[in-house]
């Protein structure tokens, strides 16, 4: 495929959120809280309103005035009312004639706001040095959700085991860091609430805005722009609600965008987690596993668990267990709210789960491939939750990785090590979508409601699918981007679902078109003008073709121009139309295990096995990935280059999680590295030059032609793989991400084990037990 958006992107010719402008537009900027937890004493709003160029300042107190007839829900604050819940929470939004003036007023508000600082809960480790007992947690008001699920009796498994292997893994805050910051342009005219924004989920955004502003969904119109990466961070309405309210207040279009600092502080992201893993072994065979997870869900709203159960499932790995127990707590802290982030928490869970498997293999002195192969799910097995395993390539991928590992191991240089990591993912196919297809004499157009977020799944993926389904060349297929009032519904570009679900809707639409043409071919008078129906031979064999810029239909009856198949109405109306829909199906869980809290069913299962060779500097602890191979359960590859790009990008992103990315907070809970200087995402120069991508086909999924999603899977096994390789090179396991040189140096005992990085800032008393 040729990416039609590539050249215009490289030349800066496409319009992203921050490029939007409108006549009469006002510029907006945020004043945010500088403390993780504090009570707002005063805010000099009137002075800010009098500043040069300022047209409006929106605070929590103004919202009822802007939305007079709506009841206001104080448990879902849009702006800080009396108490801030995390550092970076918006307190006020300024709209001014210029960006400079908007920022000046916002900065003034932020620096002049008076706060009474309250104790902040930002450190899980300090709050819970040990696994807390149930009674404590029942009373702990910061517990947002609790999941306890088990099959069998883990304590009995411990009693029966020859060996209980226990480890605690820790993972830090990590952020999505799309290259394009959040940005939108809002305009309210009468009761048309229109926002152009950089989003992965226009329809989800519409629902969210309608919900937050108490508007009927039909009054909200969300129009996507080109998106410079989302990674889960551009799903919900963040700044759109504020921009809309300011537009309502000023009767002018309002543009609002985030700085990179604000990106880190106030968008939803992955917060720290502590995984206590235990695996029981009898006669050399691991047979029982328990995970205890403490998850920081940031300042999320009470009762929200953010798929705690779903995450916990990943800590069992794609493995069979006789006995298992999963327990986790989602804790509400004074960090930014937890949110989706390319395979939310799956890389972290896999770091724990697969790292634990790897260290067990080393402890038992068995081949790590062998240990995994003996336990791994195969097609037709049952998952721990009692679902039948659909076609699943984990074992095949492990076998192929093992063969390559043998090759690498011959002639392995001293100081180098090789690690394998196994992860899995399940596509969000049950989240549906639709597309409207029009087949005209010049080609096919696909009207749909998503925008391209970078992977190519919309701008090219849908065209490839339609081209392959119909026989038309890709150039004759056009994707049209509607807004939420013109396009048919779709769930969004996330969860590896775009090609799989929306793509399947397009494929179904194509099938419907061909079926209708076949019917007409069989029943119509045809070119010869015969009236009698012919035998139904065309179905399934009918294909489209482009000749001299005209669409032709090729059927067993011969080849003819599409025009001959269209009714007069269709000829006048642009062509033959079909409405493709894919709503998947929801899967059932076997409830015979004792379950408390929500667990989630999987749909397609996708395996990813990674192999890394690393060089560890024995004197400094620095880790360099020298080669990397990724074996992916593809179902069916629809486009080689697109597939490769997706896996490469995901695994390089994963190398950041593995080696360099972490949010560092002060003892007061303030993020110290909110910016690209000290929050280190990998650059192209940090990517290994020897990168092999191997797609394993033949284990079909539910996407077009049996394809499987490839959005999340590439990032999932990376941290585990790198940590396993470091353990292989050094004999020491690093149990905490990321594997910075300093952390590895501590694991290698080059320096003392404990002393943490970070300045010893002023110490506020840690919140113990129940915070007030």
């Amino acid at each position: 495929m040729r990416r039609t958006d590539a050249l215009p992107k490289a030349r800066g010719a496409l319009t992203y959120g921050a490029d939007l402008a409108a006549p009469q537009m006002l510029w907006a900027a945020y004043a945010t809280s500088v403390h993780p937890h504090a009570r707002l004493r005063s805010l000099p709003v009137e002075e800010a309103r009098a500043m040069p160029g300022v047209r409006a300042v929106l605070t929590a107190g103004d919202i009822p005035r802007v939305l007079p007839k709506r009841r206001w829900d104080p448990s879902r604050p849009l702006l800080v009312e009396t108490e801030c819940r995390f550092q970076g929470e918006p307190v006020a939004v300024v709209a001014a004639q210029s960006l400079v003036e908007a920022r000046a007023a916002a900065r003034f508000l932020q620096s002049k706001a008076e706060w009474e600082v309250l104790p902040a809960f930002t450190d899980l480790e300090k709050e819970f040095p040990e696994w807390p007992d149930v009674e404590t947690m029942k009373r702990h008001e910061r517990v947002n959700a609790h999941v306890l699920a088990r099959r069998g009796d883990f304590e009995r498994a411990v009693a029966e085991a020859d060996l209980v292997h226990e480890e605690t893994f820790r993972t830090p805050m990590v952020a999505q860091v799309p290259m394009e910051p959040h940005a939108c342009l809002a305009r309210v005219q009468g009761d048309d609430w229109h926002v152009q924004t950089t989003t992965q989920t226009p329809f989800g955004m519409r629902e969210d805005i309608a919900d937050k502003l108490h508007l009927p969904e039909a009054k909200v119109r969300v129009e996507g722009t080109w998106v410079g990466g989302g990674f889960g961070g551009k799903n919900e309405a963040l700044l759109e609600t504020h921009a809309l309210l300011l537009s309502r207040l000023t009767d002018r279009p309002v543009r609002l965008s985030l700085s990179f600092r604000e990106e880190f502080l106030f968008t939803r992201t992955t917060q720290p987690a502590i995984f206590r893993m235990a695996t029981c072994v009898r006669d050399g065979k691991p047979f029982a596993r328990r995970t205890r997870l403490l998850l920081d869900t940031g300042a999320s709203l009470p009762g929200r668990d953010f798929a705690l159960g779903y995450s916990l499932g990943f800590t069992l790995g794609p493995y069979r267990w006789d006995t298992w127990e999963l327990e986790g707590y989602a804790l509400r802290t004074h960090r930014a709210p937890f949110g989706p982030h390319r395979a939310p928490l799956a890389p972290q869970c896999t770091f724990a789960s697969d790292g634990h498997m790897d260290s067990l293999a080393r402890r038992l002195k068995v081949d790590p491939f062998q240990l995994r192969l003996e336990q791994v799910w195969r097609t037709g097995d049952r998952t721990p939750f009692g679902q039948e395993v659909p076609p699943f390539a984990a074992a095949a991928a492990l076998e192929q990785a093992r063969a390559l590992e043998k090759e690498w191991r011959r002639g392995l240089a001293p100081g180098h090590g090789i690690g394998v990591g196994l992860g899995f993912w399940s596509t969000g196919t049950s989240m549906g979508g639709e597309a409207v297809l029009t087949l005209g004499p010049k080609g096919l157009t696909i009207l749909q409601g998503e925008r391209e977020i970078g992977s190519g799944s919309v701008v090219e993926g849908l065209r490839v699918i339609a081209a392959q389904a119909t026989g038309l060349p890709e150039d004759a297929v056009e994707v049209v981007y509607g807004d939420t009032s013109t396009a048919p519904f779709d769930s969004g570009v996330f969860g590896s679902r775009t090609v799989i679900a929306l793509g399947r809707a397009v494929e179904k639409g194509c099938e419907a078109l061909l079926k209708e043409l076949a019917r007409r071919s069989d029943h119509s008078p045809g070119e010869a003008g015969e009236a009698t129906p012919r035998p139904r031979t065309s179905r399934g064999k009918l294909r489209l073709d482009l000749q001299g810029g005209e669409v032709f239909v090729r059927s067993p009856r011969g080849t003819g121009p599409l025009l001959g198949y269209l009714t007069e109405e269709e000829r006048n109306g642009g062509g033959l139309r079909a409405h493709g829909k894919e709503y998947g199906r929801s899967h059932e869980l076997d409830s015979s295990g004792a379950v408390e809290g929500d667990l989630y069913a999987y749909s397609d299962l996708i395996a990813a096995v990674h192999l890394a060779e690393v060089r560890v500097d024995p004197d400094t602890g620095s880790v360099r990935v020298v080669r990397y191979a990724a074996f992916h359960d593809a179902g069916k590859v629809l486009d080689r280059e697109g597939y490769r790009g997706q896996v490469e990008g995901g695994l390089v992103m994963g190398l950041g999680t593995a080696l360099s990315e972490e949010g560092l907070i002060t003892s007061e809970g303030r993020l110290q590295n909110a910016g690209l200087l000290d929050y280190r995402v990998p650059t192209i120069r940090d990517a290994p030059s020897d990168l092999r991508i191997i797609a394993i086909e033949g284990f079909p999924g539910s996407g077009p032609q049996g394809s499987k999603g490839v959005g999340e899977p590439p990032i999932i096994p990376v941290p585990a793989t790198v940590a396993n390789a470091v353990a292989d090179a050094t004999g020491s396991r690093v149990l905490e991400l990321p594997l910075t040189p300093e952390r590895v140096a501590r694991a290698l005992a080059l320096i003392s084990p404990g002393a943490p990085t970070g300045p010893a800032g002023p110490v506020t008393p840690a919140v113990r037990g129940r915070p007030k």
Partner: protein
Amino acid sequence: MPFELHFPTTFEEAWALLEKGPPGSTLPIAGGTDLLLAMEFRRFSPRHVVSLSRLPLQAYEVGPEEVRIGSLVPLRTLELDPRLCARLPALVEAIAEVGSVQLRHRATLGGNVVRASSSSDLLPPLIALRSLLTLRSREGRRTLPLEEFVQGSWKTGLRPGELVEDVRVPLPRPGTYRWQRVRPANDISQVGLAVVRHPAQAGGLRWNLVAGGTTPTVQRLIRAEATLVSEEPSQEDVALAAQRAAEEARFATDLRAAEEYRRHLLQVLVRRGVEDVLRSPLAKEVRG
């Protein structure tokens, strides 16, 4: 803060501009890679910014014993010059690690020395190479060793209205620049170390070792230098120098590294740096 940008074409014009207003209200700009960030973060809020781009500060002459680098020569030019690569490895190795290619097309030596950052990758090699600065003002020219010029972050011996005209570096000099970063590409070094060997001088030192990542600015490792007396110090001397370096360096703990780790790193880098210089072809070629 809005500011006015000026493009003087003569030194006279530049000085007239730079002398206007209270201190800090007018600042010169070269590549802008440090200054614009400092303005963004409100460290400086100049009303007037004076571009040096049209002044004759681009001189670049590679002689047999010295290279003269105009303060406005972009780093990328130096990095791509094979004459420097062969004869000033310590400087070129360091330049190649500054930011990205895009950045090095803009960033200059003049800006780097005036920024005087403790984490600069260029100050350690330039000081270890015993570079001299030519400073120019209405009063005329003066020459200052870079080591004396740099005083602390954003603190230098630059007088009001004075401009850095060029940097003069002796060559050839065997040497190397060693560094460690959390992310190898485009990151700030946790520790940087320049090692340079000079020709014999009566009573003079042969080796200069300068570390970055130290506090409050880059630091010459005097005790370590004193340990490396000969042209080819023994392994024991090198080990001792490494140990002394780790002891004498002033480090702090910050979010990039713990003090303890920095000390450990410096010891490793000194040992490796000196050994690598001794093994380098240039060290074998340039003797005496």
